[in-house]
């Protein structure tokens, strides 16, 4: 087990090193001088040069890289040119909103994908065709556009759900922040109305963000389930006294699920990327909207920090998922023991 762990850990570190190089090169390639950008067009040449020295921009490329990594690890991610605030503070403040939405979307995607894949693979025929059509739609629809369509239908036309006004309606008093998740905080405060309002605000962005991971999970699970349903042990399970349905649920699903788990690190990448695309439509006060705002205001320090941060999160999620799969799957665990 420990060799498996060290191997995966090492591979992740190598990936992260490569990713940090890529991010650093992109930063160096960017037009414009960070010192000039920070001080603005009217600052004197001496002031700019002084800041360049202070920021370590006068050293060799290698020393600049080391400084870049050291700063990133220290949490010193630079300053937002537009607000003058530290990028790390901005991101930290907005992270809970993104995480809450992401977890909610992941839950939706997971439940929908497992349920639909199970029924589709079990019944095949028209049910299967319908479920696949849904997944093709979810895979092909631009999420930001679909969010807009949902708003037009459920907010504008039907008025069932709140419009794009963030995590809570203006008239709702936010519950005291404990976890940073408004739904959880509302529950902790015993504020039912705020909880319902927060949940209502989660639904449309959650569904929108869930589309990509849903289609990914569904297609993988369905294909695995159909393969595994042909395995002799499914017939044997039925010969022991399980109905076809329970043989599917008890034996095909867990076996189909394992390969999905290792691939589902990709899901987090889709959620991260999706938050950038979706949050702006719903004026969701998360990191994704911070990034799109940064782009609009040409305030790229936020974007650059987000890029490396997302690589770190992505690689760590992939690692975690691999380790979990290693723990669960007796064959992997056995081979690595």
């Amino acid at each position, binding site marked *: 087990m420990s060799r498996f762990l060290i191997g995966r850990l090492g591979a992740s570190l190598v990936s992260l090193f490569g990713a940090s190089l890529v991010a650093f090169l992109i930063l160096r390639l960017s037009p414009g001088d960070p010192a000039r950008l920070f001080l603005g067009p009217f600052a004197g040449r001496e002031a700019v040069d002084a800041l360049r020295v202070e920021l370590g921009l006068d050293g060799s490329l290698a020393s600049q890289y080391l400084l870049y990594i050291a700063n990133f690890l220290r949490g010193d991610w630079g300053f937002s040119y537009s607000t003058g605030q530290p990028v790390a503070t901005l991101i930290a403040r907005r992270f809970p909103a993104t995480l809450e939405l992401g977890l909610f979307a992941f839950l939706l995607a997971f439940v929908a994908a497992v349920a639909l894949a199970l029924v589709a693979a079990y019944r095949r025929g028209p049910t299967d065709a319908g479920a696949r059509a849904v997944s093709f739609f979810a895979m092909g629809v631009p999420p930001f556009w679909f969010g807009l369509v949902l708003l037009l239908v459920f907010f504008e036309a039907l008025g069932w759900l709140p419009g794009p006004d963030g995590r809570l309606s203006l008239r709702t008093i936010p519950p005291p922040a404990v976890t940073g998740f408004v739904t959880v905080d509302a529950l902790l405060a015993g504020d039912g109305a705020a909880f319902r309002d927060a949940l209502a605000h989660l639904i449309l962005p959650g569904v929108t963000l869930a589309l990509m991971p849903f289609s990914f999970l569904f297609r993988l699970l369905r294909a695995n389930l159909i393969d595994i349903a042909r*395995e*002799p*042990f499914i*017939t*044997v*399970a*039925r*010969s*022991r*006294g*399980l*109905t*076809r*349905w329970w043989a599917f649920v008890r*034996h095909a699903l*867990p*076996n189909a699920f*394992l390969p999905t788990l290792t691939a589902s690190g990709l899901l987090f990448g889709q959620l991260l990327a999706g938050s950038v695309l979706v949050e702006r439509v719903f004026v969701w006060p998360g990191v994704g909207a911070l990034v799109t705002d940064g782009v609009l205001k040409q305030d790229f320090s936020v974007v650059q920090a987000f890029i490396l941060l997302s690589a770190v999160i992505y690689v760590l999620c992939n690692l975690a998922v691999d380790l979990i799969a290693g723990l*669960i*799957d*007796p*064959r992997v665990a*056995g081979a690595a023991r």
Partner: protein
Amino acid sequence: MTGNVVLDIAGLSAEFATREGTAHVVRDVGFTVRAGEKVAIVGESGSGKSTFALALLGLLDPPGRIAAGAVRLDGRDLVGLGEGALKRVRGRSISLVFQDPMGALDPIKTIGAQLVDTLRRHQPGLSRADARRRAAELLREVEVGDAERRLDDYPHQYSGGMRQRVMIAIAIANDPDIVVADEPTTALDVTTQAQILALFDRLVARRGLALLMITHNLAVVANFCDTLQVMYAGRIVERGAVDAVFERPAHPYTEALIESIPDPARRGARLRTIEGLPPDLRRLPTGCSFEPRCPVGRGRPVCRTVAPPPVPLADRGPGAFAECHFAAERAGEGAA
């Protein structure tokens, strides 16, 4: 030695819908199996044996289906029962030992979990601890050493022969009346084959269960079963006591099968093979389905046009027959 009729199959037909028409994989098969009896069905691959085994337990999935007939288990017809009713019978009164010990166990559940699940499914009153004790006993009964500890192992930690023992333990867990074993020794080496057969022998003797053995390997059957049935193109073409059939096979197909067994006494002699292929089950000939390959009847008008009726051969055990126009004279020939 043998007791009541456990399994009574009558006129069973199974078919598969294909794009090129319906394949009649099992055609009008009927026989009975008594408690303590070891009955074999032998045929080459493609003869419909495995489909027949699945049909017995109601495990045939679309596009396959049972077209006609009855499978009476302890007097109750299983054909047409829903999954809800079948699940109470499967693994309880009738159970299946599968041909592929590698793929027949769920790879991510322990042997113990799969045994305990089988036990508690049919004996809901059994506590988890008691079920585990029973599971260990079962492993001991099928001669798996260090049973308690091996309960917590996963299938990939077992060898092929050991897995087949586990399959047998699962099959007998709820003390069924009949075990259907579909090619239980095919994937195993010869030594392990012999051990598994010996194990089956002891279990039948000890528990008085009935065994229906389905195999392509006549040699397995020869020293092991009581009654032999030969299946060709989905029909049973000959039935009789094993010794009698081996001595003078009445059906040319049976004879050809027997002669294709390597015989140490005839070392050096050329092994006989059966020429040609089994017929297309979607376009069966009007006459005898073996006629195109038959050394006796090939080209004979009667064989080409008339499907041979079963010819009873009473001196070879109860219900013995052969479906060949020349069965009577061939059976006599051998005796003379």
